[in-house]
């Protein structure tokens, strides 16, 4: 039998409940894998094997995630545990309270085995801005895993954990999931509580699952979503029950924006997306070409809003209540704080920040218009496959260009899922599916049917 750490979440849940194996064996297999691969991958910032194994000894079989080893990105606070957001400034910070998402996972019986490396403060799409060294892509250690939830995506692709939780502001779940060949779901803004997460851009930040299958993502979302009194932007809707029961896509209209297949996209990536569209068509969907707003406009609006919110959110790091002095911010954080301070400053606010919020309205209106014609929108998650280690250095717009195709949906607060749809030169490619707000069920059902009719998700890196 292969190692237990290779199981999907639903397989692992079934295995523990039916007592085919114990939670201790499952946790131990994950840590064996971690021990073997971490010198190459650097996917974790911290690990707690002793506590994880102790918890595995006494699990409650009635809980939906009983004994399941889960990794969380290092920007989730867990009381008594070091929480750094991969930054020097917080290298000695021990969280004083626990994020709602983590509490929900633990209440569901999950065992948090460790915390994943990320771009420092979630500023980036490579993990190269981590103050503790980049993570590597399990498909090829010379390549980046993407980011900012790159450690989480790498850990799942390498079977170091059964599932992981990341956060996305624009692309930070979907893009590393695409580059690492796993499933990443960014929920509707407000669907999942942001309480206890080190904030990046508060009007866009969304926590969500990174998993091996679409089923696994649906299970995690059903457990972590719901209103939270501690997050005033969390939606009042009750936790959703996701039933992935659609048998085909008959009657469904799926839009493929021409602008999501731009001239400078990797031609092989484009081919795979067109093939994916054909697969969806063969399942009964009607594929419709869409004319959408130029994504470059979203990049500009997103850049202004994100930098502005970053400068505001990172204003709290004064070195008085927690963390080190502001001189410990890395280069990328300094660049973002500086630009955001500029765009919010007197004399520039109207031209940049206010104008970007107005353009955001135009982008939302454009999506509303598109969703009058189609039920869902597809495209590549990223214009390229994973880029080589070193690609982001000194590039002040690296993240924005890597996330060109996910930024429009982010600005509109829409849900989106990325799932594997093929390989180019041994590196995975992700297909993204975007739906209207609160229609994660539709995105997941389309993704589930695509996954059930392809075998890309079954391919594993040779490690």
């Amino acid at each position, binding site marked *: 039998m292969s190692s237990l750490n290779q199981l999907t979440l639903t397989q692992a849940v079934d295995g523990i409940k039916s007592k085919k194996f114990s939670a201790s064996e499952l946790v131990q297999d994950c840590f064996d894998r971690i021990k073997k691969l971490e010198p190459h991958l650097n996917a974790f910032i911290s690990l707690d094997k002793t506590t994880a194994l102790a918890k595995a000894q006494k699990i409650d079989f009635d809980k939906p995630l009983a004994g399941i080893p889960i990794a969380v990105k290092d920007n989730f606070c867990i009381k008594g545990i070091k929480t750094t957001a991969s930054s020097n400034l917080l290298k000695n*910070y*021990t969280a004083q309270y626990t994020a709602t998402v983590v509490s929900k996972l633990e209440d569901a019986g999950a065992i948090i085995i460790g915390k994943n490396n990320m771009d420092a403060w979630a500023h980036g799409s490579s993990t190269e801005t981590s103050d503790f060294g980049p993570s590597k892509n399990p498909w090829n250690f010379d390549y980046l895993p993407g980011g900012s939830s790159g450690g989480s995506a790498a850990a799942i692709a390498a079977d170091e954990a059964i599932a992981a939780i990341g956060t996305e502001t624009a692309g930070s779940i979907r893009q590393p999931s695409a580059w690492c060949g796993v499933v990443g779901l960014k929920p509707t803004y407000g669907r999942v509580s942001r309480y206890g997460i080190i904030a990046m851009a508060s009007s866009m930040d969304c926590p969500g699952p990174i998993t091996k299958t679409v089923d696994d993502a649906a299970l995690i979302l059903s457990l972590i979503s719901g209103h939270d009194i501690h997050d005033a932007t969390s*939606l009042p809707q009750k936790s959703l029950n996701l039933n992935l029961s659609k048998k085909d896509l008959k009657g469904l209209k799926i839009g493929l924006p021409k602008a999501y297949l731009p001239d400078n996209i990797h031609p092989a990536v484009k081919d795979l997306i067109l093939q994916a569209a054909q697969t969806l068509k063969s399942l009964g969907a009607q594929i419709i070409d869409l004319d959408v707003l130029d994504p470059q*406009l979203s990049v500009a609006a997103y850049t202004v809003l994100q930098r502005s919110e970053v400068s505001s959110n990172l204003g709290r790091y004064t070195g008085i*209540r927690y963390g080190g002095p*502001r001189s410990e911010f890395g280069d990328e954080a300094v660049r973002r*704080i500086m*630009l955001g301070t500029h765009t919010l400053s007197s004399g520039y606010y109207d031209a940049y920040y206010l104008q970007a919020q107005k353009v*955001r*309205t135009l982008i939302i209106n454009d999506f509303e218009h598109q969703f009058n014609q189609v039920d869902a929108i597809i495209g590549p998650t990223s214009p390229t496959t994973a880029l080589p280690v070193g690609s982001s250095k000194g590039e002040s717009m690296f993240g924005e260009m890597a996330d060109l195709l996910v930024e429009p949906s982010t600005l509109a607060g829409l849900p989106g899922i990325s799932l594997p749809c093929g390989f180019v030169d041994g590196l995975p490619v992700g297909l993204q599916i975007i739906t209207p707000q609160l229609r994660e069920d539709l995105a997941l059902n389309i993704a589930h049917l695509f996954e059930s009719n392809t075998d890309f998700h079954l391919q594993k890196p040779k490690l």
Partner: protein
Amino acid sequence: MSSTKISPEQLKHIANLARLEIKADKQNLLIKQLSQTAEYIDILSQVDTKNIAPTYQVNHLKNVCRKDEVGQSLSQSEALSQAPKTHNGYFQTQATIKK
């Protein structure tokens, strides 16, 4: 808005607002990088947004209040546990007013 290029004086002004100290050897590169980004975001100025309202909040929640009830909070020692400097149960800060 005039030129998108960030001047050394502007850099100093922004750094002061952001309470960041930019070391001399990093100033030129930072000016270059910020100017590049400023140039990129300048495409926003070409968009006609007449009569368009700004969007600050995407999921249409308004005036969210919770019940005014006292709940659990951090104890004083927990709240102070991560502070670099404390004094008699307070956070210790640098003086902001000169004597």
